């Protein structure tokens, strides 16, 4: 086992590390600016070599040479298929899941490290004398804090891709995604992106936060190049993945599945993919421009050369605001998808919920400057951005009201997945209602760049992604493995994580309002925040503990979980009408949609019917 793990690790690290490290080698002794482009180039080569080495592009290469390859490649049995370039969307979905969880652990560990430093004012162990990776304590604090942000974001993007990849073809009755090879490619660029991101820590780090604002990022150490490159590459994954998903839903739905008979999660996925497909380019572009400013000395954001630092912020947030809807819409889709199953009632206002996802996605494109109210952007433009931002509350409100109406009058059951769904609603609600104060310009002049904002967005991301993601894992785990996860451990996970997280986010907002700035390694003891920070650190560790319990549950359930091959949750959804684990090519017998997806409680109604071949 240990040997196999080592071999896998090397198979993952070497193809990217060798080109990255060796292409700068000959230039090593020359001047600094000669080395930097070399590292960038090396990193890019590393990504390509990684993907090539794993055979992801083999079929394309063969086709280019005029050689035909089979439509399907049968996967190797057992665990081995997860380490190779499988074309099966379910395998890819699980690959995404595992990578997302791995990044969650890395990003979380970084947070625990700097959270520990924050437990008391003054510097305790990340001191000026402390040195690691060429950085002193303060620099390391900034690198860890910045990487925590971006690694978590990439983790969420991969988690989102995981859910959409695994679920959408099953929900619409497709045998796979529209472009299986593209799908594999989208996944296989993600691990090198993650490795590049983490390598930023070792290559000098960077001190800009995940937002990478110039001029600071134009002056940051080499680590920032690896950060840029990592984000850039992760962006390909998002763009191509969403393209694939849109094509799949448009073309491959089962017979009779009209737009308003699609499972609601599919609507959420479409809205998400539309954003990811059209906005991701902007973050890639803005980081690329800074990289060009660094290595080619172009002055896009350099005022001495006529550039404009605020322009960067516009480009950056034009992606990064819609991106938050990429993070949360699928999660909200999961909430809408699971509530009817556990309330045993139809989803209230299906069409409104479906449309609200699209509305959020669209409005999301015209609110970006609410991140810039103090930036020195045009004064008067702040007012229209306030209006548009507040408008997001309307479709979001529709979702909340519909959810409450969905469980009203039901026969509610609360196993672990439902607990996480309910947790998601409450936590996301907190994130939602703490948002408008940030949107109204004058109040935001106080709140901006404080821990209030930190608390607010941790609420939205936990409520909009983390809780629903866990709900989805507990819910569909039996579909993937034919076993169910341990209920008791699942409930412990929930009842430990939820209060700890609520304490964390309330505490953050509290000290933020009182004057705690974001992204500082040390705070003035005179502010009297020491006790609260200690509480926050303890909460952080409790969340980590609950996640450890989850992982333990995952491992023992895979090994010897209670078998669950049937319709465990008594769901109407098509994937539960066939045996678990899901057969390799999904539905051996295709199905036809004959009713509404969520007609729980309507006697004799059916959502789908399998098409039995007619006898002549």
């Amino acid at each position, binding site marked *: 086992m240990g040997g196999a793990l080592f071999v896998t690790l090397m198979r993952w690290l070497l193809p990217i590390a060798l080109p990255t490290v060796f292409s700068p080698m000959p230039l090593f002794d020359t001047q600094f600016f000669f080395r930097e482009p070399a590292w960038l180039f090396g990193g890019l080569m590393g990504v390509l070599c990684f993907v090539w080495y794993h055979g992801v592009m083999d079929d394309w290469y063969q086709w280019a040479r005029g050689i035909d390859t089979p439509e399907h490649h049968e996967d190797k049995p057992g665990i081995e298929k997860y380490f190779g370039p499988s074309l099966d969307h379910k395998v890819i979905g699980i690959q995404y899941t595992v990578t997302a969880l791995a990044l969650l652990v890395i990003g979380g560990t970084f947070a625990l490290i700097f959270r520990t430093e924050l437990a008391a004012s003054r510097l305790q162990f990340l001191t000026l004398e402390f040195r690691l990776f060429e950085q002193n304590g*303060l620099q390391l604090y*900034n690198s860890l804090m910045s990487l925590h942000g971006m690694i978590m974001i990439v983790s969420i993007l991969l988690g989102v891709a995981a859910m959409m990849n695994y679920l959408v073809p099953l929900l619409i009755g497709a045998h796979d995604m529209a472009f299986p090879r593209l799908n594999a490619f989208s996944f296989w660029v993600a691990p090198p992106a993650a490795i590049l991101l983490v390598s930023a820590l070792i290559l000098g780090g960077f*001190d800009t936060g995940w937002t990478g604002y110039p*001029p*600071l990022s134009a*002056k940051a150490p080499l680590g920032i190049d690896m950060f840029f490159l990592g984000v850039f590459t992760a962006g390909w994954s998002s763009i191509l993945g969403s393209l694939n998903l849109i094509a799949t839903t448009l073309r491959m739905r089962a017979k009779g599945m009209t737009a308003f008979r699609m499972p609601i999660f599919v609507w959420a996925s479409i809205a998400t993919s539309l954003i990811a497909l059209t906005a991701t380019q902007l973050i890639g572009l803005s980081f690329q421009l800074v990289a060009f400013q660094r290595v080619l000395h172009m002055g896009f954001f350099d*005022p*001495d050369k006529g550039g404009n630092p605020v322009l960067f912020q516009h480009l950056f947030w034009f992606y990064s605001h819609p991106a938050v809807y990429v993070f949360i819409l699928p999660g909200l889709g999961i909430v809408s998808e699971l509530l009817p199953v556990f309330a*045993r*009632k139809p*989803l209230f*206002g*299906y*069409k*409104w919920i479906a449309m609200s996802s699209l509305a959020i996605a669209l409005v999301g494109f015209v609110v970006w400057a609410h991140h810039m109210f*103090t*930036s*020195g952007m045009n*004064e008067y433009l*702040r007012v229209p951005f*306030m209006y548009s931002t*507040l408008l997001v*509350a*309307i479709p979001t*409100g*529709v979702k*909340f*009201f519909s959810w*409450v*109406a969905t*469980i*009203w009058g039901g*026969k*509610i*059951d609360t196993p672990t997945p439902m607990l996480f769904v*309910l947790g998601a*609603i*409450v936590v996301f609600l*907190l994130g939602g*209602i703490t948002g*408008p104060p940030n*949107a*109204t310009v*004058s*109040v935001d*002049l*106080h709140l*901006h*760049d*404080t821990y209030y904002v930190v608390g607010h967005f941790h609420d939205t991301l936990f409520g909009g992604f983390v809780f629903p993601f866990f709900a989805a894992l507990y819910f569909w785990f039996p579909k993937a493995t034919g076993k169910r996860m341990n209920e008791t451990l699942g409930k412990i996970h929930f009842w430990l994580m939820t209060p700890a997280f609520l304490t964390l986010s309330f505490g953050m907002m*509290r000290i933020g*309002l*009182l004057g705690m700035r974001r*992204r500082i*390694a*040390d705070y*003035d003891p005179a502010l009297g925040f020491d006790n609260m920070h200690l509480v926050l650190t303890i909460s952080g560790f409790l969340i980590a503990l609950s996640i450890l319990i989850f992982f333990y549950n995952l491992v023992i359930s895979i090994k010897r979980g209670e078998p669950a091959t049937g319709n465990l949750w008594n769901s109407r959804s098509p994937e539960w009408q066939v045996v678990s684990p899901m057969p390799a090519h999904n539905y051996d017998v295709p199905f036809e949609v004959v009713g*509404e997806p969520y007609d*729980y*409680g309507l006697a004799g109604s059916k959502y789908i019917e399998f098409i039995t071949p007619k006898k002549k």
Partner: protein
Amino acid sequence: MRHFVIVSILTAAMTYVIYVGLTSLGLMPVHASTQATSIDWLWDWQMRAMSFLFALIVAPMSYALVVFHRRKGETGEGQHFEGNYNLEIAWTVLPLFAVFAFAYMGAYSLGEVRRLDPNAMVIRVHAVQWNWTFEYPDYGFSSDVLHLPINRQIRLLMESTDVIHSFWVPEFRVKQDLVPGRVTELLITPDRLGAYRVRCAELCGISHSYMEDDVLVEETADFEEWALEQQAIAIEASKTPEGRGRILAATYCLGCHSITSTQLSGVAAPVWLGLFGKTETLQDGSSVVVDEAYLIESILNPLARIVHGFTPNMPQTFANTLSADQINDIIAFIKTLK
């Protein structure tokens, strides 16, 4: 019907309890400017809205979870209803009014915060990594503590020479970034005596945490006295090179370099006390006697020779920002530090 009555009462009670709870906690720091008054007024409305919205969702949800929970051994499905057109319209349109109301209040309050008094006193704020300097053009001196007279509007004109910083005194509420290449403006009318701190709110590099300075709001007479005193000192100082050098150094250098025997916390830069004439060990192991040529080189091209044990963090922009005379003044000042 009974359900709805109970839930309405629950929602109202919950709203009330949350709002009273939040306000009694004292969520905001004391407010010390007229701008803060307008912001706190809007924040108070925000808290009402938050309390209500939280209760509006959580009260019925918790109630439903208790009342409609599946009893042990119970089977069967829930009631079958798929939607209600009127309800959907209602909860789309009513919040729309709330949105407009809040956006209007937001714009109104922004107007209050940005209202310029023609008699405002201008203070120029200079930020460099990781240091604030406040220049009083009416009096012709600079200070690294921000003294403000009470009840008079202050118009801060702010500039940064390196990266983005942000001016924020929590008690004044308002915040504004300082962006290289442009001048940004912030209006503050202090209305409460006391000592506060300006804290840089935009991540600006390693020692961002420590980019703080004192802010004192004083009676007009006290302020006037202090300002005239500083003015006299500045006039006196500007007659000698070392005096001018001290002023320049306070603006550009003393955020990192200390002129006492102890290094500043947070930033690692060599101490200036006793610098001139001493033998400095460099990063490559060689050593150099600190003379004028070495000082000039260190200022214009900090990367040329790096002091042993320090990270080369010194800004490389002084060749553009400082004239030769100014550099000579600074050196004259350094020479006095024995």
